[in-house]
């Protein structure tokens, strides 16, 4: 096996091994709880083979991906942005409010909504960065606190304020901010998918934010690997003292990466906003925390995060069908998600060590050749 093949095999081996381990362990759990694992997996796969379910999975994977990229930007800089949760909910409500207040031509309206979401998310996350560089506050602590302030403070307060002021209207039996006019909403992209498949039925709509997520993924990749800024960011994450001696200002990089991470986090609420058109009184929560797991699973790599988001989305969506068919308890998917993360972390570390040993061996070989 030559070097390149070995590298590729190693890269693929880790997630495959993690997945196999997770399936094995989940099967044991299913057996213990009295379910037939084969029935459960069969139901999950059969369900996922349907086009409409696939649309659901993509719709679910889109915010997970954005959230994963947001967490990954922090991770690459050795910063743990736990605040994605608060950042996206805060950005979500402000963007929904602004979007509902203005009336603009379509392209501009959407741009305004997306920009507001990114600015709010970035600014809110930047606050944690500023606290770290000026006051030495650990970003884990500050983002957790900022989460609390955003979720049970600002967002809850705004909702009650708006309700009292009559600015929140009842739409279709639901309570939320002023609905955004059609010009501010991205249309679904069912027709794009239908180019390669049959018609999508059951009124399922594939979110156009998927395209935004793909663009974010590409930008993330380019920024990180092709720009001086990305180099500075990665260098600071790998070895802050060496980066400093190499002329990179650690403070600047901390603030910049927190702002960037928050700006991407601001987009996490976008799929729901574009779907409902307003900030509902009970929005989807937990996407920020799930993003951390997705980034971990995807090794902070843009394609890896995509895979992680799809796996998590598949499991999330499968939990519904398990309940319907009764093949297993729906909580099994949460166990699987947890086990996958754990197994992935172990498998990646094993592969990293093997790779390191390989490289050292080949460098030693080069040394021996050079010496003779």
């Amino acid at each position, binding site marked *: 096996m030559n070097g390149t093949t070995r590298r590729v095999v190693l890269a693929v081996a880790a997630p495959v091994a993690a997945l196999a381990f997770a399936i094995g362990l989940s099967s044991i759990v299913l057996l213990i709880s009295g379910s037939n694992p084969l029935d459960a997996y069969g139901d999950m796969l059969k369900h996922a083979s349907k086009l409409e379910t696939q649309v659901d999975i993509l719709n679910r994977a889109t915010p997970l991906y954005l959230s994963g990229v947001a967490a990954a930007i922090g991770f690459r800089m050795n910063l743990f942005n736990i605040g994605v949760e608060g950042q996206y909910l805060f950005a979500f409500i402000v963007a929904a409010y602004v979007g509902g207040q203005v009336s603009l031509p379509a392209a501009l309206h959407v741009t305004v909504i997306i920009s507001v979401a990114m600015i709010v998310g970035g600014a809110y996350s930047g606050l944690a960065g500023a606290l770290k560089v000026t006051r030495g506050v650990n970003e884990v602590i500050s983002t957790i606190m900022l989460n609390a302030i955003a979720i049970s403070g600002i967002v809850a307060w705004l909702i009650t304020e708006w309700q009292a002021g009559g600015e929140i209207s009842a739409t279709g039996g639901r309570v939320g901010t002023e609905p955004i006019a059609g010009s501010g909403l991205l249309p679904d992209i069912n027709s794009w998918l239908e180019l390669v498949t049959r018609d999508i039925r059951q009124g399922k709509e594939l979110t156009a934010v998927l395209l935004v997520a793909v663009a974010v993924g590409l930008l993330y990749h380019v920024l990180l690997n092709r720009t001086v800024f990305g180099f500075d960011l990665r260098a600071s994450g*790998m070895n802050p003292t060496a980066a400093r001696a190499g002329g990179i200002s650690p403070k600047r990089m901390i603030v910049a990466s927190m702002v960037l991470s928050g700006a991407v986090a601001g987009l996490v609420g976008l799929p729901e906003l574009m779907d409902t058109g307003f900030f509902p009184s009970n929005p989807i929560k937990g996407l920020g925390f799930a993003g951390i797991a997705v980034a971990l699973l995807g090794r902070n790599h843009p394609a890896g995060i995509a895979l992680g988001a799809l796996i998590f989305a598949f499991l999330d969506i499968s939990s519904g069908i398990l309940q319907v068919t009764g093949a297993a308890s729906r909580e099994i998917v949460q166990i699987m998600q947890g086990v996958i993360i754990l197994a992935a972390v172990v498998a990646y570390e094993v592969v990293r060590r093997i790779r390191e040993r390989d490289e*050292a061996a*080949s*460098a030693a070989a*080069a040394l021996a050749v050079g010496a003779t």
Partner: protein
Amino acid sequence: MAPAIELIGITKRFPGVIANDDVNLRVEEGEIHAICGENGAGKSTLMKILYGMQAADEGTMKIRGEEVSFSSPSEAIERGIGMVHQHFMLADQLTVLENVIIGAEPVKSGGRIDFENARAHLREVGDAYGLTIDPDDLVERLEVGERQRVEIIKVLYRGAKILILDEPTAVLVPQEVDELFRNMRDLRADGATILFIDHKLDEVLEIADTITVLRQGHTVATVKPDEVSAGDLAELMVGSELPTPQTTRSTVTDEVGLEVRDLTVLDDDERPVVEHVSVTVHRGEIVGIAGVEGNGQTELTDAIMGTRDAASGHIVLLGHDITTTSVRHRRQQGLGYVPQDRHREGLLLAAPLWENVALGHQTEPPYAHGPWLDRAGSKARTEEVREEFDVRTPNIDVAAHALSGGNQQKLIIGRELVANPSVLIAAHPTRGIDVGAQAAVWDAIRAARAAGMATLLISADLDELIGLSDTIVVMLRGSLVATLDPTDVTPRDLGAYMTGASLEEAS
């Protein structure tokens, strides 16, 4: 009476190096015994073996005549051996008393800590050895010297009769050193045996009853302080073999590359570690800074590079005052840097070689076009570095950690020199690398000097300093204390200046 400690034929090997090679040591009961030696002479390894932190590969260890082998520090503590580390291991937020009893808390009924008992025991220990300290002070409020005293009390509290002090004076200012020495004499008077590591010879001669010198893992001599001069000790420490004289012609110009004027730098505790230092390096000149480590060289280089602020004074690069500018600006103006610790400050170990070569110059061609990285340019330049500086590697895509130390160092030297810096700050450029790589690094620096580079060389290797430098200045306790001509200075003289021995003799 059997000696307190007797080590016979201790040998400890690490991959590629022998840290201790047939070391013999005999420490009598109730004496202050100094272990001297250069960095890397094997002092710390020996102490770690004695304290049970590492196991010797060969040799015998006897405590009061009884053969022992420790597999952990707790076994050493049981035998009455206590160690005070150079870096204090205290919890700042706790009081002195709490710090002292951590891990050895007296317990009363119900699992509660018996503070009364602890306090009484602490007072007993303090009285017995003449060490005074307020048990209720918060450690964060204590001076460095007092913190050290807490560490000493901590080991005495655990019943230690044999104390190992690892470079206890390294962190102290002179007045604190006097206080420490007073405490050490009191401890000796009260029956304790003290083994301490130091390489400041004036201090060793002042306090020790017996001195053992280590060089390159061997015990070279055990002497009494009244039998030797500081000069003799320095010679024992560094060896007497003279370097091969460098017959290269002087390339010194009268154009100033780097000028440091009256520079004062504070450490993290706000104490001056570099005081009123002035030094000028001309283009084509190598100025060597000699000094035992920890005398302010690191802070001086940090201040010149811009990673540490100058408290006062000026740093002038090619006529431009750069005292307050960013690291990046300084580098862009032509300041190159070979850091003393290549893993900490020099490399991104997990990144490929070509990214490591770009580090520090990533904003400039051929590594970048405006905001974009130029991967092809970086790789081409890395191939050049690999060729020119003989970096042995299978390819330039392997991660830096895969290379041997010598090749990592050649990569760093190559990366800095290929950028044609006007001024190079080189801190221990050949530390820990093999002879072949060493010669390659020296040749590269000499060639750049001939081409007009100004170099400030910080090194603990006296042969390297004498061989490469056009001028040598000696740094001691934050100040430059002597300017010497390398053509008529011997390592022995230099050693005397570095350790302050010549100042003692002169005064």
